[in-house]
């Protein structure tokens, strides 16, 4: 029954408008004096061949790089396109690849010309990950709110860019929200959408006020505390699907028990119109256990002195007008944690540029001199011990090319056979390297670039010679061997020097977060719960640089550990709740 109202009735007439491409080709016809029936027919054929069919066959699958979508992901994508018509709550269990599903959908819509203006809203910690994944796997370039153009002209940024990844916090900020809501989008993707479940928050108001043809809400935990959270999410997607709040409570929520559902079948049928939730039991994605060991290495006095000198240099020069910018400071510290060879290369470049003050230049020279005194670092020696300890195949990761080269020299000297896998190699060179590693070489020395999508499951031991500061990058490394097809338990060794930033980082990631035991994807959820606008590496670097001494450092990292720990508990609670509520009822 339509309720009594003061509002004017709305209509449901669909307009049909025609536009003929300009200019008309009449002139071309009268000028072109040659007739070529063969070409005429080929041209028609070209047009026919490029006609896009319905959604039964996905156009984008052949264009993906380093992604092997699972059957349930392809089914999900087709259902969203055909049945859900582009408005969906993607609520797969953690680690099943909601992001991949959303990206395939995005690519498919873009390839079919159904979408031009796209806004992706994520928690701050995930902005750069989205940008990187879309670029590397889907060949889609997006600008982000961390870019310089946003900082210089925010309003122009929103209007001028058709593809934006923004942190929710930035988009909802006063002054920004109003601008964002003026723009009509074709597609909005909200990652970790449980952050928009509360009607009273600006997060909710931001999404509710946006105009978009299609919208994907992504969350593994649509309900965290109250079944009404699910109601709000569904209402954002398709208002009215679950009727009014009062009617919904009356019909589906047991009085006095916010988490107990009644009329389950009816609710399931309604949710089936807007939600897909794939579960592990459907997908059979169960992986063997993995074990991580932290190997803390006591540095030689020279190494310790070098690390301290770099640390002091960065602390003194970072932020100074004539000093180091954030990127260089970050790189120097990470390189110092990796190898003397890596840091020496950057020091050399900085010296040559002569941008620092006299004092700075002198500090650089001192660092170079210290680096020159180290022939083989203790960490490298420890690596050799690990490599020689047993004969299983081992994948050694380092972030830096110079570290890779120095390790290659060392392994050659020690007569340990290895193959290199690094950015800059062609596809066939990389295939060749992987094949040699599979066949008869015990060690693969690799940098991160370009390795995704390659099957390395025949190896079950990974050694992180250095450690990326971004836990998501660590997870990606692990994902190279701990993935579908891995049948054996996986062993991960993390090398770090005592007193280095990496030692503190490992203590937080391993002890507080249990990073190395998390299911792939859980990390996104946990980092998404962190209430910090900065990227994780920035948080870590700031902690390091601001600490006046050992105690402050310990306190800072302890605080970070606490935050991660509570973000993790929050996630685990929601996960349990959602499993109880939804079970396996909404699979693709």
């Amino acid at each position, binding site marked *: 029954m339509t309720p009594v109202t003061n509002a004017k009735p709305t209509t449901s007439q669909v307009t049909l408008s025609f536009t003929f*491409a300009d200019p008309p080709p009449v002139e071309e016809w009268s000028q072109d004096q040659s007739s070529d029936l063969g070409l005429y027919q080929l041209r028609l054929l070209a047009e026919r061949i490029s006609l896009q069919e319905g959604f039964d066959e996905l156009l984008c699958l052949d264009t993906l790089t380093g992604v092997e979508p699972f059957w349930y992901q392809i089914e999900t994508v087709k259902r969203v396109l055909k049945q859900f018509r582009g408005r969906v709550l993607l609520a797969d269990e953690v680690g099943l690849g909601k992001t991949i599903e959303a990206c395939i959908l995005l690519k498919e819509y873009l390839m079919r010309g159904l979408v031009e203006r796209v806004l992706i809203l994520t928690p701050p910690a995930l902005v750069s990950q989205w940008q990187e994944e879309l670029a590397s796997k889907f060949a889609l370039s997006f600008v982000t709110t961390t870019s310089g153009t946003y900082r210089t002209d925010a309003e122009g940024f929103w209007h001028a860019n058709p593809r934006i990844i923004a942190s929710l916090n930035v988009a909802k900020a006063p002054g920004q929200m109003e601008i964002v809501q003026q723009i009509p989008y074709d597609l909005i993707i909200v990652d970790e959408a449980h952050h928009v479940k509360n009607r009273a928050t600006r997060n909710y108001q931001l999404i509710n006020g946006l105009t978009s043809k299609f919208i994907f809400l992504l969350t593994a935990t649509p309900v965290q505390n109250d079944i009404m959270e699910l109601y709000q999410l569904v209402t954002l997607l398709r208002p009215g699907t679950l009727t009014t709040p009062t009617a919904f409570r009356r019909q589906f929520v047991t009085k006095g028990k916010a988490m107990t559902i009644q009329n389950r079948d009816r609710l399931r049928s309604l949710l089936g119109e807007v939600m897909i939730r794939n579960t592990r039991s459907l997908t059979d994605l169960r992986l063997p256990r993995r074990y991580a060991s932290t190997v803390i290495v006591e540095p030689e006095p020279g190494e310790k002195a070098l690390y301290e000198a770099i640390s002091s240099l960065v602390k003194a020069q970072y932020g100074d007008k004539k000093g180091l910018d954030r990127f260089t400071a970050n790189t120097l510290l990470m390189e110092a944690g990796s190898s003397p060879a890596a840091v020496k290369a950057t020091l050399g470049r900085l010296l040559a540029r002569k941008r620092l003050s006299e004092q700075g230049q002198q500090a650089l020279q001192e660092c170079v001199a210290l680096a020159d005194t180290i022939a083989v670092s203790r960490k490298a020696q420890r690596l050799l011990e690990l490599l020689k300890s047993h004969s299983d195949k081992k994948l050694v990761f380092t972030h830096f090319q110079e570290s890779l080269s120095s390790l290659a020299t060392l392994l050659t000297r020690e007569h340990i056979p290895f193959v290199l896998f690094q950015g800059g190699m062609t596809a066939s060179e990389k295939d060749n390297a992987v094949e040699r590693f599979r066949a008869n070489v015990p060690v693969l020395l690799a940098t991160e670039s370009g390795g995704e999508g390659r099957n390395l499951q025949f190896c079950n031991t990974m050694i992180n010679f250095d450690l990326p500061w971004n836990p998501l990058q660590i997870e990606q490394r692990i994902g190279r061997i701990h993935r579908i097809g891995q049948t054996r338990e996986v062993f991960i060794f993390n090398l770090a020097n005592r007193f280095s930033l990496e030692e503190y980082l490992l203590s937080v990631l391993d002890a507080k977060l249990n990073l190395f035991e998390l299911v792939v994807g859980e990390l996104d959820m946990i980092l998404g719960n962190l209430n910090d606008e900065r990227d994780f590496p920035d948080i870590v670097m700031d902690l390091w640089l601001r600490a006046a001494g050992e105690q402050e450092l310990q306190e800072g990292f302890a605080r970070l550990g606490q935050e991660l720990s509570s973000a993790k508990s929050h996630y685990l609670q929601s996960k349990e709740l959602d499993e109880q509520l939804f079970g396996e009822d909404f699979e693709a």
Partner: protein
Amino acid sequence: MAEDLAAFTTQVLEHWGALVEAKGNAIEALLPEAVATRLQVPEEVRFRFAAANGTGTEEATDAQLVTYGSPVLEKIVAGLAAHGSVAVVALQGLYLKQVTPGPDIEQMFPPLNARGKCVKVEPTMVPYGIFNFRYTAVSDEKTEGIVAVAVNARSLAEVAPVAHRWREAEWQERSVHEVLSTISHPLPQLYRRAKSVAQRQIRRVLQDFHQSRERRLERDRQRLEAYYLGIAQEIRGRLQKKGLGGTEAEREEGKARAAERELLLKVHELQDKYAVRVQVATISVLWVLLPVLHATMAYQRRQAVREVPVFWNPLLKEWEAVACEGCRENTFAVSLCDDKQHLSCAVCSQPCPTCGRRFCRGCQPRGCPTCRKGSG
């Protein structure tokens, strides 16, 4: 999909002078230098049409991937777009029956308000334009296709079957110049006619697509109305039940009105989402020169006489309709207007359905001059 692409690529490359050989799911080609440069690939090249296992993983091979959206396919299509926009064929060996002027023809084209007489019949060559249009209809989904529209360049009548049946006869390729000299209407006028026929045809093709959007919109609209008006009703119900007054009542009433406003916004958003926007691009034209019988019908309305050409088409073995000068639909029975002797079909000859005034849709293409409605 991959097989179609492989066949197409082979055909194009061979047309461009390449040597092509199928190798499993791929093809190997030796390309002329210019073609290799145009496609930005080596002269000796291997093309594949799906990624390994169809999943997008990188292959060991350095084969060029040809698939939707791939740079190679785009370059091939772009290479073709510069040519092949016009071709001419003359049909041969068609039998032209012996016909003399008389009642047989006159009965085919009966006048509704005049006298009609066939005054002449002679064989002649008439060009038909087969115009190919590509349409892309975008709404919440997309559908696209190609329509071919055949128009008699003398009578401007649509002769749809010619678009497909010209291949049934023997043909010989001719020069564009030859056909341009025989077209009696200016090319832009002919093109406008083709466009209007194409639009009608596309509208017909899109009927199901359009209706399905209307059903979706109606369903969604009802859901939104039930939701927002339900909320407004609940608020007002509470207001009444609690007997609130003053600012509190105003605030609650404000909430109810906000819900109603949001409904209008959301419905507007839906209307925009489901609106069907059709982009049409002209691909090419094929001129088909056809030997036909050209008869002249003389229609006399009061003192004025208008001679109208009509054609017997040997490919279809039938008389072609003439085009109504009001709605451009094909018709056999015609009426003539008093002023300019425009030809109108039976529908366009009707008085204005709103005000009842009789007017010529040829003279008044914008509709009834009295009430501006009933354009027919």
